[in-house]
């Protein structure tokens, strides 16, 4: 057998490689220092032996000929594609000098630290940033910070902790755990869980629950595999999810089918909410959302009268006008039905063993760095002073404020960017052209990545090559179990891990000495809170659940005094209750109760524009074989989804004289991109759905082509500056207006 001399390394996957948010256990097969296969680990409770296409394609990703294996410096103009290989010493020396000069002249805050959503990046990037002294940690161009943070902020305000659908993921024996029960109904709200492991949730857990009896209610403008199997499908107009949530609350409250005991004992503000939802009777919601009144009522009744039931929600919630308000209303739905931290409901999700990889929340930041530093950082953090929710919830920059500041230089100029795991122009940013122009003007830009992409090609002065997950040590605490990633082989070429790169840079740039000599020391120091270390976890197969009785284990922690800092029963909120009327929102100058806000651009709010652009455009449809803008160069994956696809209903296509498989333009007042039409009845006749993150790595990288990003990135049709009152949400990723134009003889 040719495979017998292989060794198998057990590890935890968390990009780079699969790119994803999950923490799948894997078996990495190694022969002669080379990874030959990556398979699922049958003993790991997260994925139980399974693995997604992106995980299975890791060897092809690791050994891809386009991977950058050595540090590079730019030798032509930005965008000319002229690079020269340099040593790590030269790269580090150059960066150190530049960033020290900039700090001396303009202050540390003039350097932004930019991440995407892949890899174990939050830890290394914030570690470096705080060592350098900058407060500006950002997902550049992520309009309204629309990626989970609005939902997390809403849950933090409402219930003090975060919740996720309980698919037994917090229990070692999973579905066989005696204390677990499947949700009777699952609402899949604005997500297609098949496509991946969004926000740490293995999408196929939903199928596992369905096999164990869970029924579905699906809220989605498209017909999907899930809607085909749903008892009720609310096919809504994109952007109106807030109205649907309020309408369902109206039905549940007025029909008195909520959990009266839970509401009486554990919540605050019910009467105020009851009054507010009277503004959203089902008739009115039907008119707003296109969802027939009967279906809305049916969904509300099924959800409220079958306990336990749970909600699984997706990124479009964040992208809604007033995203954090829509999230609040949806949180109220599981709360009012008593589906909080109960088996099969929306269980409270906490980092395993209470270990944090990095200081996401302001509270964690304070714990790690002290109140004084946090206060000082907040004075300069971009967007923090304009938006109290941005300031008080987490340590992020508000991206819509950032782009303005990059353009105006006010209140202070941005001079440099450290970009790590982020394809800003080719994927993450709304209005990429605007970001391209603003960032071109910066004095100095470093990109840390595995492959060249439109962003690194257009902007980088120095390119540092990072390793894949199989070539490094790391750790994971989001959510559970606690896990480590084990190095299966030595790095390919001269690549280094994000942790190694950032520790070295931190040592060179820190204003006070860094206390770690090695990455292993740092990891073990973080794992200390969990009473374990890297070697111990590795010896156990790479993972461990928290011990019995630990407050990060479910269930009913609000009854047992395990959620509040003072150890009393209840929730970690100002009133100690789950708040239907939020004291924190009030404190942050926001409406304490949820409300509906119409998209800024829609048939309702801009009827004149709608005449010119008569289709609703929703973007960001996930592909099961790509993670955002990654993986387009991986043959095993690209073969399965070769082109940027826009879905169009057959009647709409017929009216436009468009056939299946034809290349078309999607255009609106902001731009035009070229997509291939998929004519399918799964689309709503008035809505077209376009995939995001498209660039063509097989085409010319240098300007002006930049791997085709201007032709195929749907974000060229989106804009910045639509953020909600909280600073969160309000983007047009998910709902704007467009038209589809036929291309005739290469012309429109």
């Amino acid at each position, binding site marked *: *057998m040719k*495979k017998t001399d292989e060794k198998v390394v057990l590890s935890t996957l968390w990009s780079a490689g699969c790119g994803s948010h999950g923490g799948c256990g894997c078996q990495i097969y190694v022969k002669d220092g080379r990874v030959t*296969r*990556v*398979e*699922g680990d*049958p003993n790991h409770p997260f994925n139980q*032996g*399974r*693995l*997604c*296409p992106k995980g*299975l*394609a890791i*060897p*092809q990703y690791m050994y891809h000929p386009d991977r950058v294996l050595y540090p590079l410096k730019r030798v032509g103009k930005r965008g000319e594609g002229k690079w020269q290989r340099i040593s790590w010493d030269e790269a580090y020396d150059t960066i150190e000098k530049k960033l020290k000069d900039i700090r001396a002249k303009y202050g540390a805050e003039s350097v932004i630290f930019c991440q995407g959503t892949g890899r174990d990046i939050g830890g290394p990037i914030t570690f470096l940033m705080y060592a350098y002294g900058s407060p500006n940690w950002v997902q550049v161009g992520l309009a309204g910070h629309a990626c989970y943070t609005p939902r997390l902020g809403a849950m933090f305000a409402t219930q003090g902790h975060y919740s996720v659908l309980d698919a037994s993921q917090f229990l070692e024996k999973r579905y066989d755990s005696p204390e677990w029960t499947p949700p009777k109904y699952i609402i899949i709200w604005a997500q297609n869980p*098949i*496509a991946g492991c969004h926000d740490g949730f293995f*999408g*196929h857990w939903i*199928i*596992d629950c*369905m*096999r164990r009896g869970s029924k579905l209610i699906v809220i989605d403008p498209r*017909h*999907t*595999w899930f*809607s*085909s199997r749903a008892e009720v*499908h609310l096919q809504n107009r994109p952007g109106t999810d807030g109205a649907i949530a309020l309408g369902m609350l109206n039905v549940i409250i007025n029909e008195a089918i909520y959990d009266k005991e839970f509401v009486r004992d554990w919540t605050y503000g019910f009467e105020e909410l009851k009054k507010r939802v009277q503004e959203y009777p089902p008739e009115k919601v039907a008119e707003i959302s296109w969802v027939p009144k009967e279906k809305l009522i049916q969904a509300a009744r099924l959800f409220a009268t079958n306990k336990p039931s749970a909600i699984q929600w997706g990124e479009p919630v964040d992208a809604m006008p007033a995203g954090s308000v829509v999230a609040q209303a949806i949180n109220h739905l599981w709360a009012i039905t008593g589906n909080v931290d109960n088996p099969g409901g929306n269980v409270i999700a906490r980092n395993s063993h209470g270990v944090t990889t990095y200081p996401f929340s302001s509270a964690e930041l304070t714990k790690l760095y002290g109140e004084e530093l946090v206060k000082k950082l907040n004075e300069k953090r971009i967007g923090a002073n304009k938006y109290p929710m941005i300031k008080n919830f987490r340590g992020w920059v508000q991206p819509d404020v950032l782009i303005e500041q990059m353009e105006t230089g006010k209140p202070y100029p941005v001079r440099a960017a450290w970009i790590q795991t982020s394809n800003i122009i080719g994927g993450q940013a709304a209005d990429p052209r605007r970001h391209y122009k603003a960032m071109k003007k910066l004095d100095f830009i470093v990109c840390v990545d595995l492959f060249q992409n439109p962003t690194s090609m257009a902007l980088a002065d120095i390119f540092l090559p990072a390793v894949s997950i199989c070539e490094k040590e790391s750790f994971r605490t989001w959510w559970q179990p606690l896990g480590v990633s084990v190095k299966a082989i030595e790095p390919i070429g001269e690549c280094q891990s994000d942790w190694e790169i950032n520790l070295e840079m931190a040592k060179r740039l820190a204003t006070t000495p860094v206390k770690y000599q090695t990455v292993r020391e740092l990891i073990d120091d973080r794992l200390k809170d969990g009473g374990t270390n890297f070697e111990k976890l590795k010896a156990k197969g790479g993972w461990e659940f928290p011990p019995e009785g630990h407050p990060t284990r479910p269930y009913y922690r609000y009854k047992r005094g395990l959620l509040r800092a003072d150890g009393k029963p209840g929730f970690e909120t100002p009133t100690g209750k789950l708040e239907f009327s939020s004291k924190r929102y009030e404190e942050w100058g926001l409406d304490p109760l949820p409300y509906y806000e119409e998209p800024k651009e829609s048939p309702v709010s801009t009827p004149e524009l709608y005449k010119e652009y008569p289709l609703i455009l929703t973007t960001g449809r996930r592909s*099961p*074989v790509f993670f955002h803008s990654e993986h387009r160069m991986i*043959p*095993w*994956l690209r*073969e*399965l989804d070769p082109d940027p696809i826009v879905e169009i209903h057959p009647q709409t296509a017929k009216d436009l004289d468009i056939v299946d498989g034809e290349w078309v333009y999607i255009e609106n007042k902001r731009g035009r991109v070229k997509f291939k039409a998929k004519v*399918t*009845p*799964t689309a709503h006749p008035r809505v077209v759905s376009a995939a995001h993150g498209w660039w063509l790595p097989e085409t010319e990288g240098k300007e002006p082509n930049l791997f085709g990003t201007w032709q195929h990135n749907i974000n060229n049709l989106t804009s910045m500056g639509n953020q909600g009152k909280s600073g969160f949400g309000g983007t047009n990723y998910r709902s704007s207006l467009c038209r589809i134009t036929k291309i005739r003889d290469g012309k429109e």
Partner: protein
Amino acid sequence: MARSGLLIEYEYCTGCHACEVACKQEHNFSGGMVGIRVEEVVTESPAKVHVDYIPFTTRFCDLCAERTTKGEVPACVKHCQATCMMYGPVTELVKAMAERPRSAIFAPR
């Protein structure tokens, strides 16, 4: 020797493509060669649009002979995220099929 095959409960196939990439990785296939392929089937009734997926084996499927002689299941079966695939002697699969939702058996060799 009893003939073996794959039982696929396509009621649960989500079209995630894990089987296809598992197959390509296992056999190091390139250029479109693959032992299993998933097709999307969209049908309409007056009440609903239905989206289903059906995997079928191709001429390149060897039922992962190298794996199964070692007692492992084929790569596609192991990694199927919807756990809707089963490997075994066809006679056993037929018995199992009787208790399952919409299903098909493939006996590629």
